[in-house]
């Protein structure tokens, strides 16, 4: 899936065909990662978020250094990770701000607890497995969630994930393992036992 460096060079030189090639090849994995990491509460914004990420990528395209031994796709996913983390950070700030301004005393902490943006009654009504997986993913910490999505859904290798997350491969393995175990517990009713 990786983009040839020659294509990147052409895009740096202003070749719009090369830009299109990059966006066409990467927009699905980028959008899917955004969607899985941020959850459906951001589904209406996911394409805007993806566009922002692509803009950041293209603004700094000339800084991509192939001699570092990092794949272009991996480099792009570092933008995905950073931007998604920023989005959540801003969301948390806004949510905290709304809570502090809440005068009727209603507890809205559920928004922070499950991260899905859904009210408890909606959760009870939800029986679809996909939604349960989304909830389970949302319960993970940000670092674990991103590692899990990149590994299990986008099939990135451990080294690439370590590059994206700016950590060691050992840390990636550890986060991945903990994420799996947490998900197994959350999704136990849907999993076949041996």
């Amino acid at each position, binding site marked *: 899936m990786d983009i040839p460096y020659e294509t990147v060079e052409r895009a740096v030189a202003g070749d719009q065909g090369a830009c299109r090639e990059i966006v066409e090849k990467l927009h699905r994995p980028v959008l899917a990662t955004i969607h899985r990491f941020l959850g459906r509460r951001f589904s209406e914004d996911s394409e805007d978020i993806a566009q922002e990420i692509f803009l950041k990528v293209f603004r700094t395209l000339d800084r991509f250094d192939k001699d570092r031994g990092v794949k272009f796709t991996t480099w792009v996913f570092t933008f995905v990770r950073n931007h998604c983390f920023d989005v959540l950070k801003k969301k948390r700030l806004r949510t905290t701000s709304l809570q502090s301004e809440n005068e009727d005393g209603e507890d809205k902490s559920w928004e922070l607890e499950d991260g899905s943006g859904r009210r408890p009654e909606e959760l009870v009504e939800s029986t679809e497995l996909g939604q349960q997986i989304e909830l389970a993913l949302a319960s993970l910490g940000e670092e674990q969630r991103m590692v899990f999505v990149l590994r299990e859904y986008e099939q990135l290798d451990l080294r690439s994930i370590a590059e994206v997350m700016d950590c060691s491969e050992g840390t990636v393995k550890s986060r991945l393992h903990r994420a799996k175990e947490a998900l*197994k517990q959350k999704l*136990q009713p849907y999993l076949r036992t041996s």
Partner: protein
Amino acid sequence: MNENGRERQDDASTGTISDESLRAILGSYSVVEPSQDFVADTLLRIQMDQHSIPRPSEDFVDRVVCAWADEQAGRPQTEVLSEVLVPVVPFARQSGQELSLSRTELGLAGQRRASLFPMALALVGFAAALALAFFVGRQSASSSVLSDENLVRIEDFPSRGSNRFARSLSLIVDRVDNDLLGNQRPGQTGPAYPRPVLSLPAPPSSLIPSAAVELHVDRATLESLGIAWEQL
């Protein structure tokens, strides 16, 4: 506890569920398809973004530095532009430092004045031919000492003085053709007239896209040619 130890403990807690089983259900969490226009919209935004940050022109820094230097020197912008665009510099009275500065100024704005080059080159060639004619025709004549008061200086050529310069040259050339190029007046011996001096500065440097021309003609020569000083 090391990484392996933790793994073993976790496996013990959920020992009956395999990774394969988890993977088998992960596909149930599908994502929505991107909209059909997503790629086109993204490319449009990228192009707009690229075009919204125009790159500065190549001589942008030079122009800023020049403008800043001029401002520090207290020169109004209009005069500065005029001076930069006028390639004729009175080399004869110029110190080395001034000359260096002038050449720098001229060189920095060279690209913008490229259109002036052909006209300046033609006039330089014309003046050079005229000088050669003088020297060939009056080789034996003694040189005269010229004072600044008796020099015609076309210092603002070509932007403001090009017409004047051309008129002066044509006046002189007419007389030279008729009277000076080896054609003495009837009954006259020896040098007919004081030697006119038409001097050219050193060949233009590659840094100077337009040539610098200075016309030196003394008053007596002009009068002997029948040209009034005031005509120039």
